[in-house]
């Protein structure tokens, strides 16, 4: 599946006027998570790009013209279940904040992710409506 792109139809008060909406890459193998995050973030004024596995995530990050400004990354993907993908992202796009999502993050995973420079590690399930403000916070902290 090619990464799909959602465009913001409305302006969000947290987005600076007259600038391109920030692009958020959502990587999760669970369709309903991608969809609900996509809906919530789009409603908040972001452009959302989806990836369902590590391969799609890497492809989206290589797209120089549409490089994401932030990545919401699931820890466990069909083709990645360690911190390898996070390491790659941090190395290739050190200015892009990454929020790691885990269904069962052990303390070691959380510590490891934060040491690699993840902006935040959040555990599933999370409040989908809180994600927009967390994304805004991470973008503002760049």
């Amino acid at each position, binding site marked *: 599946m090619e990464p799909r792109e959602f465009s913001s139809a409305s302006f969000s008060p947290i987005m600076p006027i007259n600038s391109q909406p920030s692009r958020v890459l959502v990587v999760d193998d*669970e369709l309903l998570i991608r969809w609900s995050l996509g809906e919530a973030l789009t409603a908040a004024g972001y452009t959302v790009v989806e990836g369902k596995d590590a391969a799609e995530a890497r492809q989206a990050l290589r797209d120089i013209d549409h490089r994401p400004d932030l990545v919401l990354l699931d820890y466990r993907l069909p083709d990645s279940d360690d911190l390898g993908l996070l390491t790659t992202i941090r190395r290739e796009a050190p200015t892009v904040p990454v929020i790691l*999502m885990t269904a*069962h993050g052990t303390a070691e995973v959380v510590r490891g992710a934060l040491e690699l420079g993840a902006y935040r590690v959040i555990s*599933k399930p999370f409040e989908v409506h809180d994600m927009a403000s967390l994304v805004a916070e991470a973008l503002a902290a760049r």
Partner: protein
Amino acid sequence: MSGVSHFKPDDEYSGLLRAIVESSDEAIIGKTLDGIIVSWNGGAQRTYGYTAAEAIGQSIALIIPPEHQAELERILGEIAQGRRVASYETVRITRDRRLLNVSLTISPIVDTAGCIVGASAIGRDITEAKRVEAALRASEERYRSIIDSAVDAILVIDRRGRVEAFNAAAERLFGYPAGEVLGKNVNLLMPQPYHGEHDVYMARYLATREKRIIGIGREVTGLRKDGTTFPVHLSVGEMTIDGETMFTGILHDLTARVALETQLREQAALTRLGEMAAVVAHEVKNPLTGIRGAVQIIGGRLPAGSRDAEVVKEIVARIDTLNDLMKDLLLFARPPQPRLAPVDPRPLLETVVGLARQDPGARAITIQVEGPSDTVMADAELLKLVVQNVLLNAVHAIAGPGLVRVVVQPVESMCRITVTDTGPGIPPEVREKLFTPFFTTKARGTGLGLSTARRFIEAQGGTIRIDCPPAGGTSVTIELPRSAPAAAV
């Protein structure tokens, strides 16, 4: 007058008696009431070493060791009263100063006029018999002490199953003093169905000689006096004493081994459960997250306050319940490794109590924290979870107005935290299952709260127990090691 000799004229009959006396192996001595020896047979000479010529005319004190001299007066006193002294065991001394154990029978001698004129003493050397008896006793003593000092219970039964011997370890193991078991059927020590079948087993063995346990040994169940049962290894040996078939049972208590095996099995099961839970948790939580998010997005598009919007809220609440269950399961199955650090339990308890006060069920309940500040070695996060769990149990148990007291009390090297509530207490049959995983009395509960609490507390080197004092309510006692003094750190 039986046992009294009568002086007869020196006739033929008297000569016969003399011959009998003379030929006797026993020492037969005649003496006056003053104790002067007047006759002394061959047996006396062989026993005591003096010839008749040497002995006659002397006091009988001749053959009484100094420490027994008082006996003489007593015996002569009895004789003077016309009484016989029978089978009197004492010690006498020989011509060559050897001490002999003797059994004496001393009878009064009465003259034709009926007056007591002296005494006849018949003595038998029982030194050898005494020595054999002592040796036998020592040998028995030795075997008895071997059997009684044995760590394993040893009992002997006869062919009818009656208990003939029951050693000290058996007394400890079964809780019966030997006196209450000896002579009884050994099935007293077995629970059903063995209790009822043992006589049959024995009869079958005696009839067929087919060995099912003898010389083999197997794990069986014992029954204590207090009615409790326990695992025990039994080996049986057969022996014949005086033509009588007897069986010796040696019983080795397996309680500790079985407990250890159970513990190891439980640990292995918990490890597997932990691995399984981690997989299940991920497989469940991930879709739950998606469902929850998607339902919330869709719900947000429904008219606020509509029935549909309410249903969506309910769906989200149910999902949260499922998620809590997964969380409980994970906490129990994969408890985090505690990170111990010095913690003052006082402020920690205040914080948790503050949260508990906000529970809707706690409105009519006073929760108070008492006791001094202290320092324990604990993982503050895990300790919080445990106390929170215990407090919510207390609040739910009270179900109405009441009081919960949280008391901190240093007890030597441990810090004791007691949570006492004024609830209805816990029935005894529930009390013993409180820490069993998945056991719950709540309509909606995983039954993992207390078992998780115990895992957490034990992982921090502490203990947790629950009591229901006679005064009512429930009291949960947690003990954690106090922080080592700074010098030792």
